[in-house]
């Protein structure tokens, strides 16, 4: 027995001790992971804030007191602004350290170094955009005496102070799973966040969808289907009409394929994501904001609401905080982990929030190069100009080289090799800017006018900055650089890079930005719609604008209520109604009646008609008819836009509800004829009816009988909030929400995006504010604040935000921790 026992002991020791020294496959090192004191279980203890604590923090000018309330929000009371940002960095690192690093790597294209070689192509994609290079250059140009620079440095010091003092039990779970340690935070990384936001919000180039459509059906059709101006005008800058203005011009018939456009398309950038559209499950990126002037509120105070729609993750993209420097600063709201200050929020006098303008701020240029394989020069005005070359080395977690690429740059920007040659692109996101300074200054504004004045200098991505103040002013400006282009000024094309006449000649003056202040109508709304009615201002700002339905709905709700309250504003965030439904549902119903009356119906159509007529048009979680409408809206493009379905594909390359509206207005349009049915010439009602019948079939197949429970909207159209890595058990999946495509709270089926923060602010004698986001303050899955806000967010509720003026003002029963940070001499 003895040898067997010896062998068994050795084997057990080898497995468990060995597996604790080195990873066994994908498993973390067992001993360090399972250690109940300093292993992963230690995160349970680390999640807890001490009732009181003293922290030595290098670099502080004076003591800083932080009170963490029962919502997990830190209220930072400092004697200097830089101290506030330093502590903000520390506490953000405490809660979101892994997120800080992941975001940095996602921008710098070094994910493979952390997560493995499978991220190599993702890294190549992002390095091809040169975001980190641009951010590094911006940082190098910052005025070191500016508050923006000093704040970034102070923030970084706070982050690194946390890292330096990290105890084994504090190491975030993600690092344990990956077998890695945190890397130090560099001040320039704060600028990476804005670069990443630029990638999220300002990357699509309308040239691509326009060329793609033109390649299939010709220029005239492309101009109509992917227009510069939306056929439904509900602009951000009021145009004198609260109701939307419809400019439904007849669609030109589909033309012949345009091979030249196809060639140009092949030379394009090909980094554009499909534009968010009501037919797209996955992408619901955009935002809403609206403000109401005192004359239209019940209490006589300005009201402001906002909800930026972004990727929903655990932890959240936002971190809530409150920063106070007596007599200088008192600002609350949401911060971007990694950047000092508050991005969306309010002080005692002013509240602000943003939506994405979606301006056309990226242009692609066909370049003529000296060597198609390894270019070193490009031709401009018959002169060869040298390219800037930059070596990009990609490594794996062990530091081994995975690949080495050479990035090339013209005077316009990064280059990329395409199927038929080289292109470069110029993008305002890569231009020099100083967002941090602006946001920090804006947080001290005392009037809407002052806030708007500060934000005039904002560069990219273009944003509709909405502001209200305690005096009752409301205002909005679609700020950011809008390039002035040669010729007709349009940017929805690929330019000839061999001539300098293709280059931008400047930027639109701020005075021509979409703008409104103290509007006569008494409210302002932005929901990513075209910002200005072209009938009032024809300056080219972009093309292929997102659908206007959220804007139409919000405008309608505000116009109907001249005594707005904070509760009503909050309810609007998850309003289940839909201007899109109000627009399109009647068409389906009329078509079905028409076909039925003509004897061309059938049992399926009749049943679908009956079911849709029962629907109240709302996207509530218990609703059992909304799915039928959505499926019909999905069936319709495949039949209507068959000319836009390339050979071998199933779906049209482009579809938008506003283009569909143009087709609906013309029952005899040739677009309605499905060319795949050679013996039949369809019309509008036939296609709509066929879409309805197909939708019923799809619904029954997928979800069973209509009232058996399977059609329940909350069940069939949930939202998924994924962990950053993404690990299902650390995520919140299949969250039932109120809202659907193009409702005020837009939702995709198992969509990963949505309202990342909801806020309502009333600027009365005392500012009152309410807010929430789908996640929790902590990135520690062991924390009760990890995902605690999700049920509240899903149900449309908002928390009352606490705003103590001094540390003594926060009620004891609402205080979970009091931490005192004291200066520590640098060693």
């Amino acid at each position, binding site marked *: 027995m003895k040898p067997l026992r010896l062998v068994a002991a050795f084997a057990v020791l080898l497995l468990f001790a060995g597996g604790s020294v080195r990873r066994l496959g994908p498993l973390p090192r067992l001993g360090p992971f399972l250690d109940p004191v300093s292993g992963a279980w230690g995160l*349970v203890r680390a999640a807890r804030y001490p009732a009181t604590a003293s922290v030595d923090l290098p670099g502080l000018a004076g003591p800083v007191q932080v009170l963490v309330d029962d919502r997990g929000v830190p209220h930072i009371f400092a004697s200097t602004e830089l101290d506030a940002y330093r502590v903000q960095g520390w506490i953000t690192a405490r809660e979101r350290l892994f997120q800080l690093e992941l975001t940095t790597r996602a921008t710098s294209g070094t994910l493979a170094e952390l997560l493995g070689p499978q991220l190599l192509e993702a890294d190549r994609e992002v390095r091809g955009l040169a975001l980190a290079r641009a951010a590094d250059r911006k940082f190098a140009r910052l005025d070191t005496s500016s508050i923006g620079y000093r704040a970034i440095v102070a923030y970084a010091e706070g982050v690194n102070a946390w890292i330096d003092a990290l105890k084994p039990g504090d190491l975030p779970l993600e690092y344990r799973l990956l077998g890695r340690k945190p890397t130090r935070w560099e001040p320039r990384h704060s600028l990476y966040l804005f670069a990443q936001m630029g990638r999220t919000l300002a990357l699509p180039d309308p040239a691509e969808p326009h060329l793609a459509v033109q390649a299939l059906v010709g220029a005239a059709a492309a101009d109509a289907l992917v227009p510069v101006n939306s056929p439904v005008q509900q602009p951000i800058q009021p145009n004198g009409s609260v109701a939307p203005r419809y400019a439904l011009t007849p669609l030109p018939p589909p033309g012949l394929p345009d091979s030249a456009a196809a060639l140009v398309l092949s030379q394009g950038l090909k980094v554009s994501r499909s534009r968010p559209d009501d037919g797209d499950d996955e992408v619901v990126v955009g935002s809403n904001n609206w403000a109401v002037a005192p004359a239209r509120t019940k209490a006589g105070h300005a009201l402001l609401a906002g909800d930026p729609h972004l990727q929903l993750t655990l932890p959240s993209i936002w971190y809530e905080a409150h920063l106070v420097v007596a007599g200088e600063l008192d600002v609350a709201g949401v911060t971007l982990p990694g950047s000092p200050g508050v991005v969306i929020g309010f002080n005692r006098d002013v509240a602000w929030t943003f939506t994405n303008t979606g301006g056309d701020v990226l242009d692609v240029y066909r370049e003529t190069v000296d060597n198609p394989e390894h270019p070193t020069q490009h031709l401009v005005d018959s002169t060869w100009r040298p390219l800037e070359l930059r070596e990009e080395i990609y490594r794996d977690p062990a530091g081994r080289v995975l690949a080495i690429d050479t990035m090339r740059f013209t005077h316009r920007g990064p280059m990329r090799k395409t199927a038929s040659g080289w292109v470069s692109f110029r993008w305002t996101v890569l231009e020099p800017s100083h967002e941090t300074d602006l946001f920090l200054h804006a947080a001290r504004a005392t009037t809407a006018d002052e806030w708007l004045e500060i934000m005039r200098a904002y560069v990219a991505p273009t944003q509709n900055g909405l502001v209200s103040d305690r005096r009752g002013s409301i205002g909005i400006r679609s700020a950011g650089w809008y390039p002035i282009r040669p010729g007709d000024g349009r940017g929805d094309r690929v330019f000839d890079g061999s001539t300098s006449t293709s280059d931008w000649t400047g930027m639109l003056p701020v005075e021509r930005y979409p703008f409104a202040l103290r509007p006569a109508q008494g409210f302002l709304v932005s929901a990513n719609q075209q910002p200005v009615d072209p009938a009032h201002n024809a300056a080219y700002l972009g093309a292929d604008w997102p659908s206007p339905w959220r804007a139409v709905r919000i405008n309608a709700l505000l116009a109907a209520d001249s005594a707005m309250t904070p509760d009503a504003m909050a309810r609007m965030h998850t309003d289940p109604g839909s201007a899109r439904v109000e627009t399109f549902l009647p068409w389906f119903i009329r078509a079905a009646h028409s076909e039925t009356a003509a004897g061309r119906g059938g049992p399926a159509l009749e049943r679908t008609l009956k079911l849709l007529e029962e629907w109240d048009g709302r996207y509530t979680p218990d609703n059992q008819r909304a799915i039928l409408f959505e499926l019909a809206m999905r069936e319709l493009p495949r039949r209507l836009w068959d000319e836009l379905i390339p050979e071998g594909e199933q779906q049209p390359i482009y579809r938008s509800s506003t283009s569909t509206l143009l087709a609906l207005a013309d029952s005899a349009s040739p677009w309605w004829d499905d060319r795949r049915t050679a013996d039949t010439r369809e019309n509008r009602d036939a296609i709509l009816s066929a879409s309805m019948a197909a939708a019923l079939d799809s619904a029954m197949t997928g979800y069973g009988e209509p009232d058996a429970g399977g059609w329940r909207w909350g069940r069939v159209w949930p939202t998924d909030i994924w962990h950053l890595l993404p690990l299902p058990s650390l995520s919140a999946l299949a969250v039932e929400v109120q809202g659907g495509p193009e409702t005020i709270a837009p939702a995709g089926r198992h969509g990963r995006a949505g309202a990342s923060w909801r806020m309502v602010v009333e600027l009365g004698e005392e500012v009152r504010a309410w807010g929430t986001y789908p996640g929790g303050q902590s990135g520690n899955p062991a924390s009760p604040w990890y995902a605690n806000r999700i049920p509240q967010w899903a149900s449309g509720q908002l928390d009352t935000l606490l705003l103590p003026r001094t540390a003594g003002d926060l009620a004891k029963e609402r205080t979970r921790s009091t931490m005192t940070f004291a200066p520590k001499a640098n060693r």
Partner: protein
Amino acid sequence: MSRPWGQGLLILAMVAATFLAGWWGVALVAAAWGWRGRARDAALAAFVAWAALLAWTASAGALLPFAARLGGIFSLPRWAMVAVTPLFAALLAWGAAALLESRKKG
């Protein structure tokens, strides 16, 4: 020293060693015990020590919900995720102690 007292001291030693040196501490204490005592006692002490430490951790926060999340990563139910922790310590301790015990018995 009676066995219960000895076992109790061993458990305390495992707890202290975990604080001082993590899983290494468990292995070292178990190996030292293996010179004089039985491997099964070391395994039992390690199991109890780490179970107690888990209970101590649970007093600081919501251990079970976290166990569910953690277990989900490894496709384990939360009870298994909790159980595997002291089990790991027990097996590690047994291996270290048994190795020395076997050599001692020669």
